[in-house]
């Protein structure tokens, strides 16, 4: 039963919040509010712990001379720069101009550049997929080609036709598959939740 403790806790909290949404009751709202505050605090603590864990792991890598020392130095240096800028005496915290400069002048351009490089790396990955000569890859690449053609930003009648076709593709084939997946995931989560709450495991089948 022990393995069911955390999923059951999650489901109990979920059901409580759901009940608070459906039923107007001051006591229920109070309990749900306390739970939500607790979840928010736990999330904040988890984020802080994750940051600390990353720093410790990178510091150990650096000390033991394993992995990527330049990457570890960059991570630790970046964390230190933001912490010093935000926590030094007289600093305005997260809204301090020095923190803002680090974000705007360094983090955003680097992030956007890495994301832009996905353009060529995704194309290369798709070429490699096709080179494997399986039909799934061909279908994937063919669908990507169709979408790329539909997204060409052209004007006039051709552009209007492409936009209308893109809208149809989005509303019907893509939309129906995505909705089907979302509904399927929701049903699966509900069934799994019920099984967990009732203590039904694979050994009971």
């Amino acid at each position: 039963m022990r393995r069911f403790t955390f999923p059951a806790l999650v489901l109990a909290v979920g059901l409580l919040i759901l009940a608070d949404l459906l039923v107007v009751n001051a006591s229920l709202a109070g309990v749900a509010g306390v739970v939500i505050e607790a979840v928010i605090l736990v999330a904040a603590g988890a984020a802080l712990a994750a940051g600390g864990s990353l720093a410790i792991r990178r510091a150990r890598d650096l000390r033991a001379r394993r992995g990527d020392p330049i990457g570890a130095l960059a991570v630790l240096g970046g964390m230190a720069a933001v912490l010093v800028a935000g926590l030094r005496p007289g600093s305005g915290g997260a809204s301090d101009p020095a923190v803002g400069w680090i974000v705007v002048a360094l983090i955003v351009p680097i992030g956007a550049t890495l994301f832009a490089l996905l353009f060529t790396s995704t194309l290369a990955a798709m070429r490699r997929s096709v080179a494997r000569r399986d039909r799934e890859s061909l279908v994937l690449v063919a669908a990507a080609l169709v979408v790329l053609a539909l997204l060409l930003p052209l004007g006039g009648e051709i552009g209007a036709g492409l936009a209308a076709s893109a809208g149809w593709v989005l509303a019907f084939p893509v939309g129906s598959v995505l909705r089907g997946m979302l509904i399927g995931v929701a049903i699966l989560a509900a069934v799994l939740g019920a099984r967990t709450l009732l203590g039904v495991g694979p050994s009971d089948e």
Partner: protein
Amino acid sequence: MSDRLTRIGAPILLLVVLAAAGLVPSGLDIADPGSKAVDELRIVLAELDDGAAVLVGFDPDVGTYAEIRPTVRMLLAELAGRGIDVSIVSLTPDGRALALAERQRAERLAPDAQEIVDLGFIPGAEAALVALGGAIAGTSELASPGGASLEATDLIIVVGGNDLGPRSWVEQVQPRIDAIPVIAVTPISLLPEVEPYRQSGQLAAVIATPRDGAAYRLVADPGPFAALGDADGGPPALAIVVGLLAAIGWLGETVVRRIGPSLGPRPERDRS
């Protein structure tokens, strides 16, 4: 050696051509003058009284924010031009950093505009959205550093990214608020996810493509805060066309070269 040169050189050449295409004036215009998305957005904005209160959920990610940044800036400029009270809240670290950057930019470029109220960062993702929904509905208090009341909110604008987007707002906030419209500005990669919500009316308007963003920037009226609007900050149309054509050509050539052998019988494996 030749293969290796092609493998390394082709992406570099493509990036150089893309960069050049971004610098050359092409006369191409990606704005769609008949954009339904922009019409829907204009209707929602027209229903706002001057002095209304708008809550902006600011959670783009650094990777895709460049795509929607000019549109977001123009939207903020238009709201400032109408004297609308704007509060900004983030639920992701990336969103918080970008929100602060945009807020500082607004203070620098438009010091006379009404100050954007900073509600800060609320951890907890979906749980934080539940708390926000309660604060907007007036059933609970907002646990944020800003601590302002949100009960007078007239419109919610979700600036979404890959971490937390309009879908979460529709699921967690909208059931808890009454008749407050929610609109979204997101990168095009989220369009399949948000389009069903737009069709169902749960999102009153969605700007999620470069075409719609460019079309909105053409018709938006930032009033005295044009510098804040960044009207010319959109992506160069020629670079988009070149990039898409390069991708089509590259992948198309691969498919044509491979399609015969792939659809035919596979070569028998040597089982010896």
